[in-house]
C-alpha cells in the first residue's frame, strides 16, 4: 500500500492535477466554464452568501423563531425557499459542495492539516470580520461571487460599482491588518 502511494506521489500527472496549485489563468478559465454551465443548468447565476441568510432563518426556526414578518424574507419567493428546506435549496447544496470539494482537494494534495489558533486577537478578528462580511453582503445584495463575479459575467454595471468599493474596503482592511497584526 505504501509503495503504491509513493509511486503515485512521484507521478507527474498527479503533481500537475492534484498537488501543484493551478495558475491564476487556469483557475479563471475553469471558474468561467463552471459558472456558465451552472447558469445554463439552473437558470440562476452563481451566488454564495444568499444561502447563509437562509441558514440563519432555518436555525432561527429550529428554535421556534419566526421570520415571516422580516422584510428580507417577506417575499413569497423567499418564503417558498424557506418552506422547501435546505435540501431543495440549490445555493445551500452548492455551498456544501464547495466545502466538500475543498476538503477533497486538500486531502488529494496531501495538504490537510488542523491549524492551531495563534492568538485571541486572531479569533476576535475572524469573528468580527465574518460578521461584517456577512452583514455587508446582505446589504449589498451579494458577496464577491453573486454581486461581483456573476454580475460582471452578466454584463451588469453593478458588478463594476461593487468592484470599486471592494477595492476601497480592501485598502482600509489592509491598513487595519498592518496596524493590528504586524
Amino acid at each position, binding site marked *: 500500500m505504501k509503495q503504491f502511494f509513493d509511486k503515485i506521489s512521484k507521478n507527474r500527472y498527479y503533481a500537475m492535477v492534484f498537488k501543484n496549485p493551478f495558475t491564476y489563468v487556469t483557475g479563471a478559465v475553469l471558474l468561467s466554464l463552471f459558472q456558465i454551465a451552472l447558469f445554463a443548468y439552473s437558470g440562476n447565476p452563481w451566488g454564495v452568501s444568499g444561502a447563509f441568510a437562509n441558514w440563519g432563518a432555518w436555525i432561527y426556526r429550529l428554535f421556534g423563531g419566526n421570520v415571516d414578518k422580516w422584510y428580507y424574507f417577506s417575499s413569497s419567493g423567499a418564503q417558498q425557499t424557506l418552506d422547501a428546506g435546505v435540501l431543495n435549496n440549490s445555493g445551500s447544496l452548492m455551498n456544501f459542495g464547495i466545502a466538500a470539494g475543498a476538503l477533497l482537494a486538500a486531502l488529494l494534495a496531501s495538504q490537510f*492539516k488542523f491549524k492551531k489558533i495563534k492568538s485571541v486577537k486572531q479569533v476576535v478578528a475572524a469573528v468580527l470580520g465574518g460578521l461584517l462580511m456577512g452583514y455587508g453582503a446582505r446589504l449589498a445584495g451579494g458577496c464577491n461571487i453573486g454581486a461581483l463575479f456573476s454580475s460582471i459575467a452578466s454584463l451588469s454595471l453593478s458588478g463594476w460599482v461593487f468592484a470599486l468599493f471592494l477595492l476601497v474596503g480592501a485598502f482600509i482592511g489592509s491598513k487595519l491588518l498592518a496596524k493590528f*497584526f504586524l
Partner: protein
Amino acid sequence: MAEFELDCLGEACPVPLMKTEKKMAGLKSGDTLIVHIDHSCAMKNVPEWARKQGHNVEVEEVGDGEWDVIIEKC
C-alpha cells in the same frame, strides 16, 4: 551570513507575506530567512514576491500542508 526564522504557522493571507516583507527589510545581503507556513496561498505568494525582489528562493514541503520558504537576500 546570519540565519533568521519567521513563524507564520496558523496565519492566513496576506499576513505571512506582509510579515516576510517587513522582516526581509531588516536583513543584510547574504542573510537567510526561513519562513514557516501552513497556508497554501502563502506557499505561492511569498516565493513569488521574493523572486520578484531578486532573492534566491527555495520551497520545502516539511509535512502535510506545511512548508518552509527559504529566502536568501540578494
